[in-house]
């Protein structure tokens, strides 16, 4: 009886593992990942077109927003992110456009003082 109960506990968790794997591999997780991958590629292309290699940039605190983090990840090694508030250093940011421009409403921009 003890063995059966233990097997049942292991089986319930294994079943959950199977269902989770299905969701991740071909279900909602995968569908969301495919959408995000297209979004990520769009942001990367926009960033590549906007920021020349070797550019020093500042970035605002993105908070929980992921888009700017994806852009910085993509450009890492090509750009140098610096601290401080030197107005001569442009600000790399991702603005969210309610009209849906850019990449599903995410617009990569490099703001320069003045």
């Amino acid at each position, binding site marked *: 009886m003890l063995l059966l109960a*233990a097997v049942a*506990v292991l089986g319930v968790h294994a079943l959950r593992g199977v269902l989770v794997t299905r969701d*991740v591999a071909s279900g909602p997780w995968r569908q969301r990942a495919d959408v995000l991958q297209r979004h990520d590629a769009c942001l990367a292309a926009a960033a590549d077109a906007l920021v020349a290699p070797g550019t020093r940039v500042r970035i605002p605190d993105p908070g929980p927003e992921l888009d700017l983090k994806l852009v910085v*990840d993509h450009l890492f*090694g090509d750009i140098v992110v610096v601290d401080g508030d030197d107005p001569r250093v442009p600000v790399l940011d991702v603005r969210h456009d309610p009209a849906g421009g850019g990449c599903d409403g995410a617009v990569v921009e490099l703001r320069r003082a003045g």
Partner: protein
Amino acid sequence: MVALVFVVVVGLPPAWVVAPSWSVALPLTGVTSGLVLSAAAVGSLVTRGALLPWVLVVTLATWLASAVVVSRRRAPRAGAPTPAPGEAAAAPGPARAWCLAVVAVMSAPVLVGSLGPATEYDERAVWLFHARWLWHGGAAAREAMATAALGWSHSDYPPLVPATVAGLWSVVDGGDLQLGQAVTSVQSWLVVVLAGVLVAGAVRRRAQLPVAVLAGLFAVGSFGIAGGFGTRGYADLAWAAMATAAAIAGLVLPPTPATTRLAAVCLAAAALTKSEALVTVVAVIAPLIALRWLVVQRRRALPGLAALVLAVAVGASWSVLSARFGTQAQRDITGDGLAALLRGDASQVDRVEPALRGLWGYARTTIVISTVVIVAALVLARRPRRELRLGGGWWLPTAAVGSFVVALAALAAGELDMDFWIGSAGSRLVIASRALLLAEVLVVAAVAVDTLVGTPRGVSPPPGDADDRLEAAVVDLTDRPLPASVLGRRD
């Protein structure tokens, strides 16, 4: 496949030093490869040099040192007692190689989850981002760590997972995000398999095949506990599995030099994987293992305790290094928050109830159904466990409770919005405590299978000499001594 081959090739020689058995050494590569490549990453960071030379030098040095250690290991002495006929089948020991095959084949399909695009939040904002830092070399990584504007990526997080990814990137196909995701998934999978195989090795050989099947269920179930994050580039299942493997080696298996090495290596790796893992190792698992070893071995526990101290020191060394590198990280939990919680300040204490409610919501199924089995086993099946010289049934649940308390304290002491935090990370914070409970259920099932399979005629359990069995009799605070009839029997 590339990720698997890389992890195994880098980690196998040191894994063999820790556990000279294919069934344990192969899955242990998920741990040892991470340690080797973490050392390489630290070398690159300290010297501000490129990563690839350090990967090559540290890997080759580790292989060489491992070869020396293995070659110097003493062969069995001439005249050493040989097992009586049938005794080998009755003796616990490292699981046979086909046990590993069973667990691996049953659980390998979960890795299909790692084939999708690498797009998860922490995966991209933390783990693969840090891997990219390391891949670009020590100078770039040091600069990024010291940049406050990048502090949102938790720049102080330990290096084991990103170092493994960056290590592979440095030799093949640099910067490939999906490959990075595959490495982390393989690493997590190997360590989960390791935990299962360790339990299969805790029973007599004739019981190992059915227990391996149950360990396969445990491995798949661990990825269920991880809720999809196990194959999506997160470090949470990796450290939880390392902590669980360490707990099985240190709290369940008989204390031997081999289990001591295993526990220490897994503890060090867990602590080098994530910050809350370090806290769990230092505050919960290492002290529990030390307590058990002290009770069981008394003065003979000193070498094991030294190994534990070394493991904790290795795990904690990253914090020192990170501070020395001038790391600027945003911290969700601060010392002030923890102090306020301990003082009983309302601002933090008021967070305990919603934190508890949130964590309970994620863990309740595992807690309730596992507890039923564990308590039943404590009441009904203590003797067979003692006969196998295994630690008592309270150790892993105690570690699970401790791990849960660490997660609860982290949420309560932190400053993030509780609903956001619970929603985004709550399920991952309880992976370790759920995995520890599930591991105990696996141990209960394994002992029950061992009892069912029975002892072959003419062989007296438990194996080992009388001293070993006497040691097993006082195996922990929860066990009663073995009956005199068992202690008095000689093989």
